């Protein structure tokens, strides 16, 4: 985490909690945020950026931003969703900065990974083609094992491909916006998204949908 020395750990640095009244009668207490939402925010950040130090920084930036804007939190959504929303913005900012500094285009990963799924003429090998997926999303969201499998499959994707997939599908950023954020061409983005979807689909089918049968 940024600019903090080891001396903090030996001092009585953590002050007593201060309750700050927010709107709608809600009480906001940053220290409680760490206890109640810290792990959840950290896990989400880690799925997105894959590095502990970066994920910790993002959580810190999120909570600092939350302190600054807590007066605006009207209690219309849960505190968790409010904080997650701020974290998503911080993640976008992080990738925008990274996009200026490094190349995001990855056309090498998974280039030919799924050739065994198709016959040379370009049709599915029928017995290896996609199976029906049951149950429906509304039901599957209530199963913790599904989310564990989803995380496992996202973790297995090549990093850049996972980054663009999650920007597109988790944050719902439009593809043009992703291209300008990361300085990549639209056609390259489509190739990367296609590979992400193909690989994630395959992983979910093997580890979740077929496993249930």
């Amino acid at each position: 985490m940024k600019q903090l020395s080891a001396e903090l750990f030996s001092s009585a640095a953590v002050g007593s909690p201060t309750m700050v009244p927010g709107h709608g009668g809600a009480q906001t207490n940053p220290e409680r945020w760490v206890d109640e939402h810290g792990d959840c925010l950290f896990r989400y950040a880690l799925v997105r950026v894959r590095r502990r130090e970066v994920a910790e920084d993002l959580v810190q930036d999120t909570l600092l931003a939350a302190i600054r804007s807590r007066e605006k939190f009207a209690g219309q959504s849960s505190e968790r969703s409010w904080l997650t929303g701020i974290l998503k913005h911080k993640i976008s900012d992080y990738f925008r900065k990274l996009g200026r500094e490094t190349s995001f285009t990855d056309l090498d990963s998974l280039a030919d990974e799924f050739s065994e799924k198709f016959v040379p003429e370009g049709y599915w090998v029928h017995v290896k083609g996609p199976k029906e997926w049951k149950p429906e999303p509304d039901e599957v969201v209530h199963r913790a094992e599904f989310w564990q499998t989803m995380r496992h499959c996202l973790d297995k994707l090549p990093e850049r491909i996972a980054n663009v997939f999650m920007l597109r599908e988790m944050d719902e950023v439009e593809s043009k916006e992703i291209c300008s954020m990361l300085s990549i061409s639209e056609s390259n983005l489509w190739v990367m998204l296609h590979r992400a979807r193909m690989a994630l689909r395959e992983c979910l089918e093997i580890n979740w949908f077929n496993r249930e049968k």
Partner: protein
Amino acid sequence: MGTNVEDSNPRPPDDTSAIQPTGWLGKILVWTISGATPKCRDVVRILSEQMDHDLPLMMRLRLRLHFSVCCWCERYMKQLHYMRETARRFPEHTDEAGGPVLSPEARFRLKHVLNSQ
């Protein structure tokens, strides 16, 4: 799918395509539609692009036609939407998804930084 390709690429029992390559009419229909529409390898790429931008009407019609002989590409399209719907809900389910948590040191540092504000 061409007739010869069909013979060497058997359809599993869960094939739910509307038009089956059975009987001479079925074989001709499957062969004709397969020839007139993109190959599955291209269809999956086009379906992914459709998640990010609109396709021309003619292409959408060709995909519909393709689905009539290929339940696998149609399932693929549904699964792209399935993944979108579930991925969007992932942030609400991070607790269930498990994974590493904040270290005690990181938790301590966070609290210190927040309290110093």
